[in-house]
C-alpha cells in the first residue's frame, strides 16, 4: 500500500496494441482448430489448410531435393529431417518455412544431414539470443564451418579471442531459441502445423475434385461452351435473349402508344391524365393496380389502344363522348365513360383487374377483353346496371337516376338530364355553354343535393 501522486502522465498505447495483437493471434489459432466456429469458417479452414499443406509440401520437396543432391540423404534421413524441422519449429515458435531454406543452405555447405541440423540449431539459438537476422548469422556460421571465422567474429566481437569460435559460439547461445520463444508464436505455430496436417488429408480430395472438373468434357468445359454460345447470334441461348429483349421493347412501345391516345400524342401526359382520373374516381390503391395491370397486359394493350383509338375517332365524328356521373351516399363519385369506353373496360374491367392480380384466369379474361371490346347492352329500367323504377329509385329507395326510355338508344350521344325542383332548360343551357367553352365535361361534377 502506498500513495502515488501523479505529476505528469504519458500517452502510450503500444502495450495495449501488443496485448491485442497477442490475443488476436490466439483468436486466429482457436479459429484455426475450429473451436466455436460456423460452417463457413470450417470450410474456410479446410481451404486454408489445403493451401497451407500445398505450400508446405512445396517447401518440403525443395528441401528434400537439396538434401538428397547435396548431402546424399537416404529416405530414412529425409523422414527424420522432416520430423526435426517440425519439432524445432514447435519448440522455438519459428515457422518451418523459415527454417527450411537455412537448413538447405547448411546441407549445401556441410554435405551432411546431421551437421546441417547442428548448424541450424546454432543459428536459430544465436538469432534468438542476439536479436540479429537469422539469414546473416547463417551466412557467417556457414563461413565459420568452412574455417573462415572473420565475419562471425565481426558480428560477435566477444569471439575474437576464442580459440574454438564455433564451439564457444554454440555454448554462448545454447537453448536461447527455446528460452526466448514467444508463447503465442509457439501456439500459432503448433496450430499451423496442425492445419498443414489437416490440409494434407484434404489436399488429395481437392486434387481429385480439380481433376474431375477440369477434365475434357467436364463441368468447366460445359460451362465454357454454354458461355461461348452467347457469342453466336444463331445459338438457342442467344436467340432467347434477343426474343426477351424484343418482347420488352414491343410491350413498352404498345404501352407508350396506349397512353399517348389520352395525352394528345404524349404518353407521359396520357398516363398523367389516366392516373389522375382513376385516382379521383377510385380508391387510390385500386387505381394504381389498374394502371399497372393495364401496363402489364402485354399484347392485349396494343389491341386495346387500337380499339380506343377507333372509338375516339368515332366520337370525334359524332360530336365527342360524354360522362355520366353517379353520386353515392358516401360522397364517392363513380365515373362511367359510357359512350367512349364500354363499361366492360371501365368499372367492370377494373374489378377484373383487381381480381386479375391474384387469379390467372381473370388476368386472361382481361387480356381477352382488350382484344374484343364489345359494348354491352344495358338492360331496360336500369342506370349503370342498377335496376330502378320509372322514377329512378332503386330497391333500397335511393335515387340513382332516371332509366333510359325505349326511344333512347344507348349508342346515342344525347345526355339525358332530369332535374327535380329546377328548370331543366336552364341546366341544359348551362351545360351547353360549358361544353362550348371547355370542350368535354369534367369527370367530376359538383352539384346540389338530390331531392324527391
Amino acid at each position, binding site marked *: *500500500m*502506498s*500513495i*502515488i*501522486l*501523479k*505529476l*505528469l*502522465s*504519458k*500517452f*502510450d*498505447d*503500444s*502495450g*495495449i496494441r*501488443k*496485448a491485442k495483437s497477442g490475443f488476436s493471434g490466439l483468436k486466429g489459432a482457436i479459429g484455426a482448430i475450429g473451436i466455436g466456429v460456423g460452417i463457413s469458417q470450417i470450410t474456410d479452414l479446410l481451404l486454408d489448410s489445403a493451401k497451407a499443406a500445398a505450400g508446405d509440401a512445396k517447401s518440403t520437396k525443395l528441401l528434400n531435393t537439396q538434401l538428397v543432391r547435396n548431402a546424399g540423404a537416404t529416405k530414412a534421413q529425409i523422414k527424420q529431417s522432416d520430423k526435426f524441422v517440425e519439432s524445432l519449429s514447435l519448440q522455438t515458435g519459428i515457422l518451418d518455412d523459415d527454417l527450411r531454406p537455412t537448413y538447405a543452405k547448411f546441407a549445401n555447405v556441410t554435405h551432411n544431414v546431421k551437421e546441417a541440423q547442428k548448424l541450424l540449431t546454432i543459428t536459430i539459438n544465436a538469432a534468438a539470443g542476439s536479436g540479429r537476422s537469422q539469414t546473416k548469422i547463417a551466412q557467417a556460421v556457414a563461413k565459420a564451418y568452412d574455417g573462415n571465422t572473420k565475419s562471425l567474429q565481426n558480428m560477435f566481437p566477444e569471439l575474437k579471442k576464442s580459440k574454438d569460435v564455433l564451439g564457444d559460439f554454440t555454448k554462448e547461445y545454447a537453448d536461447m531459441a527455446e528460452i526466448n520463444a514467444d508463447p503465442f508464436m509457439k501456439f500459432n505455430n503448433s496450430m499451423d502445423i496442425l492445419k498443414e496436417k489437416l490440409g494434407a488429408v484434404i489436399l488429395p480430395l481437392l486434387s481429385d475434385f480439380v481433376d474431375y472438373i477440369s477434365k475434357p468434357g467436364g463441368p468447366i468445359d460445359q460451362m465454357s461452351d454454354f458461355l461461348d454460345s452467347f457469342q453466336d447470334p444463331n445459338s438457342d441461348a442467344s436467340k432467347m435473349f434477343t426474343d426477351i429483349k424484343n418482347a420488352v421493347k414491343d410491350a413498352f412501345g404498345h404501352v407508350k402508344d396506349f397512353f399517348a391516345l389520352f395525352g394528345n400524342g404524349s404518353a407521359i401526359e396520357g398516363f398523367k391524365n389516366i392516373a389522375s382520373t382513376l385516382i379521383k374516381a377510385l380508391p387510390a390503391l385500386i387505381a394504381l393496380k389498374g394502371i399497372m395491370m393495364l401496363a402489364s397486359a402485354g399484347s392485349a394493350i396494343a389491341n386495346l389502344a387500337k380499339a380506343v383509338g377507333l372509338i375516339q375517332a368515332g366520337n370525334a365524328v359524332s360530336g365527342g363522348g360524354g360522362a355520366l356521373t353517379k353520386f353515392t351516399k358516401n360522397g364517392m363519385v363513380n365515373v362511367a365513360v359510357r359512350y367512349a369506353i364500354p363499361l366492360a373496360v371501365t368499372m367492370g374491367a377494373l374489378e377484373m383487374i383487381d381480381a386479375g392480380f391474384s387469379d390467372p384466369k381473370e388476368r386472361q379474361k382481361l387480356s381477352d377483353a382488350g382484344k374484343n371490346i364489345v359494348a354491352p347492352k344495358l338492360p331496360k329500367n336500369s342506370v349503370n346496371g342498377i335496376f330502378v323504377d320509372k322514377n329512378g329509385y332503386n330497391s333500397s329507395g335511393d335515387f340513382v337516376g332516371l332509366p333510359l326510355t325505349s326511344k333512347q338508344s344507348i349508342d346515342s350521344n344525347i345526355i339525358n338530364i332530369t332535374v327535380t325542383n329546377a328548370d331543366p332548360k336552364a341546366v341544359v343551357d348551362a351545360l351547353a355553354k360549358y361544353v362550348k367553352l371547355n370542350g368535354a365535361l369534367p369527370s367530376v361534377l359538383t352539384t346540389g343535393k338530390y331531392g324527391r
Partner: protein
Amino acid sequence: MASDIVYNAKEIVKALEALEPGMKKVLVREVKFAAKPTISAIKSAIPKVNPFISSVRPVANTRGRLGWGVEVKADTVKPSFKTKASKKFAVTSLVSIVVSSPATALADVAGKGSGAVLNPVTKSYPYKGGSRTHRTTTQGQKMIKHLRSKNASNFVYPAAEKSLPMVKAEIKLILERYAAKVNRKLN
C-alpha cells in the same frame, strides 16, 4: 488530481539514449531533482511520531506490515520516472511521487471514505478447525477519530498541493528541452 499528458515520452528517451548514451540518466536525474520541493513538503507533513498510538492502542505495532516505520521508514517519499507502457491503460503516470510506507498511507487515507459500514457482518473465515463470522467492529472508526484529533490524517495531498503546479511546469520544461535537443540532433 489531474495531471498533464506527455506524448512520445518513450520515443524521446529512447532517441536521447541513442544520440548520446547516458543522457537518459541525466534527464531522469533532472526530473527527480525538480520534484524535490514537493517531496520535502510531503516529508515534512508526515508525522514524526507514530500517530496510531492512543489510549485504545497504547502499544505500537512493531512487527506487522502496517507498523509505523516497520520495513519501510514512515517518511520514505520517492520520485518515480516510468516510460514503460501498460497493457491495460493507454494513459499512465510518467513522473510521480510515491509515499511507500503502508502505515503512512493508511494514516493518510483513513477517514476519506463515506464511513458507511459495507457489511455489518464479516465473511465466513476459518477459525480453530471450523469457520466463523463476526460483526464489523468499531475499531476503525475509533482509529479515524483519533487520527483526526491529532491532525495525522489527509496530510500528503494538502502538503503537495502548494508546490505541485510549479514542479509540474518545471518537469514539463525539462522534457521539452530534451525533446528539442532530440529534434535538433535528428534534423
